[in-house]
């Protein structure tokens, strides 16, 4: 299945990518997707332990399952205000 990956702020800068399509096995979880992203973009691996995830605009847990067409966003620690 294909999902849309989005990255922001330091993750976007370090990877050089703000959006990408990624191919995952059926039933893949958020944690599996993040591992795969870490393998593909080695410049952000050290940031991933402190990176949260959102699926379709809502914060997600590592064990949440992804579905075809989902938007997975990688969220570095927020610093608004």
């Amino acid at each position, binding site marked *: 299945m294909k999902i849309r990956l989005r990255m922001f702020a*330091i993750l976007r800068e370090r990877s050089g990518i703000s959006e990408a399509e990624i191919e995952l096995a059926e039933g893949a979880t958020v944690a599996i997707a993040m591992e795969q992203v870490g393998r593909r973009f080695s410049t952000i691996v050290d940031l991933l332990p402190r990176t949260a995830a959102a699926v379709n605009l809502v914060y997600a847990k590592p064990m949440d399952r992804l579905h075809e067409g989902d938007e997975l966003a990688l969220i570095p620690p927020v610093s608004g205000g």
Partner: protein
Amino acid sequence: MNTAEDIVALKSIALDVNDAIDAVGTGESGAIAVFLGIMRRDKNSEGRELVALNYEAYGEMAEAQMRQLVADARGRWPISRVVLLHRTGVVRLGEPSVLVVVSTPHRAEAFEACRFLIDQLKALVTIWKKEVWGDGSTSWVDGPGK
């Protein structure tokens, strides 16, 4: 009771506090609490001066989160109206980066709701700031994390 008059948005242009105060006035509100987050003077460990902050947002999620925070606040306090705005792009010294204006019948709930909205926004909403230093170098501000 999430009224159509609430204004919740990311803005790429300067925030106007007077417009926000005008927007929350109703005949029923005896109190308006205003919070402005302002870009302040700062120096880094090497003595460089901070000249600007550059804000980036995951816009669709941030605005949805901000609307949800307003709905949560409305569930807890008798709010008349809310303006909740956050800047994107470059914010310079003395300019507001975030604005929270809440009107309620009485002052206690205006203060409480205003405090809740800014605290929750800072903790949860998908916005990031990058510091721009006097020598042109930049650094992402490291938030407290998940």
